[in-house]
């Protein structure tokens, strides 16, 4: 069965989120959307299905303290699935102050939700002029950037080229794998934000980090940042499994997201891995071809990450060759 894709749209009031929602709903794309919003009234469209949500976050009794889910989403999505023939995708709007993690975790934890829908991507709409100040004064803003698959820098005309470069660099220190799209009045191509499959392990083919410029990485002491780890020798599967399990168990509260494409010893296929806080999944996907270099790449995005400790743990998983290898 084809699962209904769900896009999570975050961003502060005034960032242009509603403009984007209105565009998605009004553009002539032949698709029917169900939109789950926090507040009615701002949307100019009544043709599509708009549902009010209550942002009820609750803890799961599964011994995992950061495992919070959105109870109202479970209820609403279950209700929407009863009229499944009526729409092609779901968009969930969250407020600027809301933590995106419970929304994402709902799609990992609840079996009913998981069986009918699939999280497609987290899209964060930001006001390019005000984002630098928000990143400095609000942990929520940094976390929304950290969590996003796509970041829309809206109202880009209000800043100059130099400010734009600095802002993009700063975003990439927090989240090197987010796609940054610039816009005015959210005038983006909708294919940049919809149907991306960012959480679909089968569709994650490469993890190419956004460019990093050294001077900017040191300019701000970001609380939320990323740690990228790479290895050109294969990893030992058992050791990696034990290490990542322990890392997520002990530091999962601070690790917002983790993604990896890994070369495991004696495995012809890529192992693709992702997590949201402590909830993780991983599968073997496409085989490595002879013409491409096999390597592992793993990125952690989170608060107060201990880079040295993560690096040491990761390196201990690398298969070290004690006998000289035959060279062809």
């Amino acid at each position, binding site marked *: 069965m084809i699962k209904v894709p769900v896009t999570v749209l975050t961003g502060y009031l005034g960032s242009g989120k509603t403009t984007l929602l209105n565009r998605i709903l009004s553009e002539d794309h032949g698709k029917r959307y169900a939109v789950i919003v926090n507040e009615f009234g701002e949307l100019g469209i009544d043709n599509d299905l708009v549902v009010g949500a209550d942002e009820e976050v*609750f803890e799961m009794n599964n011994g995992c303290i950061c495992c919070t889910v959105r109870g109202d989403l479970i209820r609403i999505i279950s*209700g929407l699935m*009863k009229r499944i023939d009526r729409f092609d995708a779901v968009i969930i709007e969250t407020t600027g102050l809301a933590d995106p993690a419970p929304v994402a975790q709902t799609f990992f934890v609840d079996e009913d939700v998981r069986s009918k829908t699939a999280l497609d991507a987290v899209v964060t709409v930001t006001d390019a002029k005000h984002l630098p100040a928000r990143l400095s004064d609000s942990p929520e803003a940094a976390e929304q950037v950290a969590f996003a698959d796509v970041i829309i820098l809206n109202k880009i005309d209000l800043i100059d080229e130099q400010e734009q470069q600095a802002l993009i660099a700063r975003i990439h220190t927090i989240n090197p794998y987010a796609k940054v799209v610039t816009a005015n009045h959210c005038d983006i191509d909708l294919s940049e934000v919809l149907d991306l499959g960012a959480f679909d392990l089968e569709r994650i083919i490469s993890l190419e980090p956004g460019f990093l410029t050294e001077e900017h990485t040191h300019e701000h002491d970001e609380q939320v940042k990323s740690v990228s780890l790479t290895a050109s020798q294969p990893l030992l599967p058992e050791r990696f499994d034990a290490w990542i399990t322990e890392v997520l168990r002990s530091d999962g509260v601070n690790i917002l997201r983790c993604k990896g494409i890994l070369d495991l010893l004696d495995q012809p296929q890529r192992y693709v891995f992702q997590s949201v806080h402590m909830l993780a999944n991983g599968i073997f996907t496409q085989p490595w071809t002879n013409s491409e270099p096999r390597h592992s790449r793993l990125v952690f995005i989170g608060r107060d990450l201990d880079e040295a400790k993560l690096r040491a743990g990761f390196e201990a998983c690398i298969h070290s060759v004690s006998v000289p290898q035959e060279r062809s």
Partner: protein
Amino acid sequence: MSQPASILEQLGSQWQWPAYVLSACFDKANNLAFALGDGSVRLFPADVDHEPLSIKAHEGAVLSLSSAPKTGFLSGGDDGRFMRIDADGTLTELTDFQGRWIDHVASHASGVMACTEGKRLHLYPGRGQPLVREFPSTVGGICFAPNGYRMAVAHYGGVTLCSTRSADSTPVLLKCPGSHLAVTWSPDSRFVISAMQEECLRGWRLEDNDALFMSGYSAKVKSLAWFNGGRYLATSGSPCAPCWSFKGRKGPKGREPLTPGESTSALVTAVAGDPKHAILAIGYDDGQVTIAEPLRDQEVVIKPPGNGAITTLGWSSDGNWLAFGTETGFAGRLPVGG
């Protein structure tokens, strides 16, 4: 080669509709209603000579259906309307909560009707003003006490028992962390059982608040059914239909459930029981419906797999009829009396 006719095909009736069947429900006069995901209610009067009716009860999907206090039905929809549907098909709007979803509806023979939207429970006594009560979170499920004086309301953090008649009486909170969904009150009034987000049941013996905990399910328990005079509670959410015994003073504490309907490949999604006898209907996610006699270890398949997961089973209060529906709009009715 054609398949031999199923028991349903030989003895019952079946229908195919274009939308998800949310609920199959009999009223006390054996009128039968099916609530569908396209907003319609399909009504089959007990008098079989009477034509079945298709009633456009709601704009969106019907979210909840129950029998009305005397005859006929109550329904709630994602269009915010709480409706009464008389046995002759007459439609009456009881309330319109614009922009809200009516998640649950229920009624009691004494005349009280209830519905919930979000965190609020609305009670409509037979006469007098409606009562409104608000809970800490969205209501997961509601159930009247057998005498109709109280109602159990499941929500995040536990189950609240409140009066259906007076706004002044203090509600009793049965506290238990986590999200409580479906809730049921035992026919002997002694126990309240709730199904949780975490694939388990919680329960309370009301005389002393003694707590029950039943786990081991592989999915959320969405269907709960008392049968055999309230001696057993049948449940979904497992590859069989665990039936917990409430025969003794202690209820199921320390006792293994009966496990009729064991399947190697399918999950039980709905249960319904004969109110008086130890006979149970079990519906699976592969579309099969089985009737079991758990105390005699006898089972018979009345509908083979296919037509989508069983979403609902209803057994008439006189024990004579069984009805079911599936997620692909397939539905059926079968005489089961005698």
